C-alpha cells in the first residue's frame, strides 16, 4: 500500500511538469489555430475530471444508499464539490477557447451545454444539501437526487449532439478537429488526461480523509 502510494506521488510529481513541457513546447500547434490550440491539452482533462467527479458522486451515493455508512455521504458531497469547481473551470477555459476559434464567447455548442448542465446539477445538489440541514435523512435524500441526475445525464449527452446538428449544420469544427489529430497531439492529450485524473484522485482523497477526521473529532468533542 505504501509502495503504491509512493509510485502514485512520483507519477504525479514527475508527470505534471512533463505534461506542461509536452503541451507548451513539444507539440506542434494545430493547423489554423496557432498556439491557442494548446489550451486543448488542459481544457479537455479538466472537463474529463468534472465528468469523473459526477461518476464518483453517483457511485458514492449508490454505496451510501446500500450501506448507510456515514462516510459515503461525506464522500459524495466532496465529489460534488470538486465537480462544481472543475466544471466551472471547464466552462471558463472552454469559453476562452471558443473566443479564439469562433470569435464568440458563448454559442451553446453541445459540449458547452453539457458542461453548463453539469455545473447546474452540482449547484442544485449543493443547495439541496445545505437546505436539508439538521434533517436525519439528509444524506439519503441528496443521494437520491444525484442518482436521478445520473439517470438523466446520458439523455443529455447522447441527444444534444443530434439537436445541435439540425440547428447549426455549418459548424463542423468539433468532428474535424477530432479526426485530424496528429499522433503527437493525441499522445499529449492522453498523457495530460491521465495526469489530471491522478491529480483528481489525489485531491478527492485528501478531502475525503479530512472530512472523515473532522466528523470523528466532532463526535469525540460531543461525547466529552
Amino acid at each position, binding site marked *: 500500500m505504501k509502495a503504491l502510494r509512493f509510485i502514485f506521488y512520483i507519477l504525479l510529481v514527475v508527470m505534471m511538469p512533463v505534461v506542461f513541457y509536452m503541451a507548451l513546447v513539444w507539440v506542434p500547434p494545430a493547423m489554423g489555430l496557432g498556439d491557442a490550440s494548446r489550451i486543448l491539452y488542459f481544457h479537455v482533462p479538466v472537463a474529463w475530471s468534472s465528468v469523473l467527479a459526477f461518476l464518483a458522486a453517483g457511485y458514492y451515493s449508490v454505496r451510501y444508499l446500500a450501506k448507510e455508512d456515514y462516510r459515503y455521504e461525506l464522500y459524495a458531497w466532496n465529489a460534488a464539490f470538486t465537480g462544481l469547481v472543475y466544471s466551472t473551470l471547464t466552462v471558463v477555459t472552454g469559453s476562452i477557447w471558443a473566443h479564439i476559434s469562433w470569435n464568440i464567447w458563448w454559442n451553446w455548442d453541445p459540449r458547452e451545454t453539457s458542461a453548463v448542465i453539469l455545473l447546474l446539477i452540482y449547484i442544485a445538489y449543493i443547495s439541496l444539501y445545505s437546505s436539508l440541514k439538521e434533517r436525519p435523512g439528509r444524506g439519503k435524500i441528496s443521494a437520491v437526487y444525484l442518482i436521478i441526475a445520473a*439517470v*438523466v445525464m446520458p439523455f443529455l449527452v447522447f441527444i444534444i449532439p443530434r439537436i445541435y446538428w439540425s440547428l447549426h449544420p455549418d459548424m463542423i469544427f468539433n468532428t474535424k478537429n477530432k479526426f485530424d489529430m496528429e499522433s503527437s497531439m493525441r499522445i499529449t492529450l492522453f498523457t495530460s488526461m491521465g495526469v489530471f485524473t491522478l491529480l483528481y484522485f489525489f485531491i478527492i482523497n485528501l478531502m475525503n480523509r479530512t472530512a472523515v477526521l473532522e466528523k470523528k473529532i466532532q463526535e469525540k468533542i460531543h461525547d466529552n
Partner: protein
Amino acid sequence: MENRIYKHLKKDILVEFRNRSAVNISFAFAGITTIAVSLASGGIRLDANIQSILFWIIIFFSGMSGLAHTFIREEEERTALFLAIHSIPEEVYISKLLFNLVFFIFIALVVSPLYIFFMHAIPVHFTHFCLTVLFGSIAIASVSTILGAIVSKAENRGTLFTVISFPLMLPVLWIAIMNTTASLEPGAAPGFQSILFLLAFSGVIISASYLSFKFIWME
C-alpha cells in the same frame, strides 16, 4: 395494491379540489401568464421558434407552482408520518405520480387552447403538436414527482424546487421546444423519434424513482 392506489389517488384529488387554493392558483397562473405574454407582445405575429419557447416556458413555470404541492401538502399538514406508517412507499409514489400526471395534463389542456387562441399560433401538424404537449407534460410530471418528494423534506421549498428541477428538465424542454417549432411551421411533418425520446425519458425516470422513492419517504 391497485385498490389502495386508487383510494390514495381519490383522496388526493378530493383534498386538492376541496382545498381549492393550490389547484386554482396553478390554473390562474397558467392563464394569466399566457394572457400577459400575449398582451406584452401586442398582437405581433412571432416566429414559430419564439412562440414555442414562450409556450414551454409558460408550461414549465405553471408546473413549478403546482407539481411539488402534493408532497409539500403532506408535510405541511403533518399527514406525511401517518401516510408513511399506514402504506407502503411504492403505493404512495404511484398514486402521487398519477395525481401529478392528471393535474399536469389538465394544465396543458388549459394553456394550449388559450395560447393558440391569443397568440395566433395555429399548429400546422396538429397531431404532432398534441402528442408533443401530451408526452412533454408526462415527462415533466414524472421528473417533478420525485423532485417534489425530495424538496418537501427541505427548507425554502418553492425556490429550491425550481433550482433542482431545472437542470433535469432541460432535455425535456429542449426536445419539446424543437418539436413544437417543427409542428408550428409549414413543411414536412416532423418524425416521431423525439416523441419516442420523451416517452423513453419518462419511463427511465419513473423506474429510477420507483426504486429509490423509499429512501426519501421513510425518513
